[in-house]
């Protein structure tokens, strides 16, 4: 089963939920898809033993062949090429590697070179096969790193995906193909507003889902009322406690502190598995 843990709003507790589930069930694969800010290993402590660079292709212009006709820059939908008199400027961060410039070039002056935009790291921890992606600083496009990460999915295992916040392309790329999605929220107006956006996304992709309410007690009842009205199961509530916040701040997983958490996250996982089997 592929289980992704997402939220519209950032900082609601995705990583807390994803890592605690993984630690409760053991023998799982864990992919941290929040390649812009990967944090799961702060809680999982996997010993990284392998890494691979992630490349994208960007155009390289042969100045001997190029006659600066400007067709490539005209075609490029991302403004990644500009022809200024007798130079072609390439803006690598803007390039989507679509290949269009090469197709339209009448002089065959365009070839491709590889550029590193990030890396994937792999390691083991407590029976968990751990991967995370890391986007290099200053890079704009998380998608190629997430795609490379998802190619590591082992369908014979239970796979937990820690998804980036938001609702746009990196989120869609991460959760597509999941059997179930947990949406983590907090009982505040921001939490509710962004939960509604996240619900639209999972419904759009037809992925079954349920909600975890984190920092329960800090706000009001509107998130629960919304879930009730929309018939969305509330899978778990994590109370607002100073102790929990302190553990989190130190990078200590809840399941390590009290066995009851081990049980609760494990039970939630089993409930989801039953749901998916149906």
């Amino acid at each position, binding site marked *: 089963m592929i289980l992704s843990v997402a939220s*519209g*709003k*950032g*900082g*609601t507790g995705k*990583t807390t939920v994803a890592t605690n589930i993984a630690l409760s069930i053991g023998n799982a694969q864990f992919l941290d898809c*929040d390649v*812009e*800010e990967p*944090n799961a290993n*702060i809680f999982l402590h996997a010993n990284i033993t392998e890494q691979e660079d992630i490349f994208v292709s960007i155009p390289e212009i042969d100045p001997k062949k190029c006659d600066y006709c400007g067709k490539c820059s005209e*075609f490029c*939908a*991302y403004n990644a090429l500009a022809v200024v008199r007798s130079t072609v400027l390439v803006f690598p*961060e803007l390039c*989507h*590697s*679509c*290949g*269009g410039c090469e*197709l*339209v070039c009448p002089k065959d002056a365009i070839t491709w070179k590889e550029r590193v935009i990030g890396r994937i790291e792999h390691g083991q921890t407590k029976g968990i096969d751990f991967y995370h992606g890391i*986007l290099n*600083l*200053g*890079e*704009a*496009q*998380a998608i190629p790193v997430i795609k490379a990460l998802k190619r590591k999915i082992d369908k014979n295992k239970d796979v937990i995906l820690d998804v*980036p*916040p*938001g*609702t*746009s*392309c*990196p*989120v*869609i790329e991460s959760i*597509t193909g999941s059997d179930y999605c947990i949406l983590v929220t*907090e009982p*505040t*107006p*921001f939490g509710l*507003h*962004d939960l509604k*956006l996240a619900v*639209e*996304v999972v419904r*759009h*992709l037809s992925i079954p889902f349920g909600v975890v309410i984190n920092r329960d007690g*800090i*706000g*009001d009842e509107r998130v629960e009322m919304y879930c009730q009205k929309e018939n969305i199961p509330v899978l778990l509530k994590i109370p607002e406690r*100073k102790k929990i*916040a*302190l553990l*989190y*701040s*130190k*990078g200590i997983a809840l399941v390590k502190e009290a066995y009851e958490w081990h049980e609760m996250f494990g039970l939630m996982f089993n409930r989801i598995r039953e749901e998916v089997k149906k």
Partner: protein
Amino acid sequence: MKELTVISGKGGTGKTSITAAFAALAKDAVFADCDVDAADLHLILKPTIKKTMKFPGLKIASIDKTLCIDCKKCHDSCRFHAIGEDIQLIRESCEGCGVCAYVCPVNAITMVDRDSGFAYLSETRFGPMAHAVLHTAEEASGKLVTVVRNNASDLAKQQKKNLIIIDGPPGIGCPVISSITGVDLVLIVTEPTLTAIHDFERIFGVAQHFHTPAVVCINKATINPENTSKIEQYCKKNTIMIVGKLPYDTTITKAMIHEQSIIEFSDGILTQKIRDMWSKILEVLNANG
């Protein structure tokens, strides 16, 4: 005209609550919500929309099956796997490059505007605001951020405002880069958790990469004093100015529940500290010429 962007790397450190407080304190400012993925600033500022503009985003392929000769050139050429074997478009995968339309020998494919969202020009009780929504499962949030920033800048020119306060998105990728490039100052809101510290160091690296001056606010500083001093040491080592150290205080959540900025909601210690922080930020902004 000056631009200040509030960012954090990690989500949920308090960017929007702090931006809303600044909105209440600032005189003569325009506000821009550049977290177009999951915009929340409007929940506090309650803007009255004056003008709505369509955001076309990137183009999208439109296939006329009556002209298609099933040569599959488009399918073979698409690097994004957005056209299936059956020559059906997979909307979520199309990045609007136009390669399919170019290779089609019978002109069955045209690139059309995509309806990706809306950009708004609004008025709030504190001043004008630019914001936007991105439709479900749409792309190009970086491009929409640029639209919002341009709109905010137009509003500032029209209404003779000298400051734009931008609520930025979490992360370090495309919408974040669009939110911080060329601004006068970024405020990084962090908190004393190992995750937030990790993310703070990465977002600070991004700000440096784009040569954007940065100052720091340590929010919820009392949660873990040991980690707070780690942040202070890091800032000292990298000569980053800490403009505010705010205690953990649920008043800010209560203000949010009442859909108010903390400045309007309470006169307590946190409000005072945010006022002090705002004065320091203005000093830095003005000192930078």
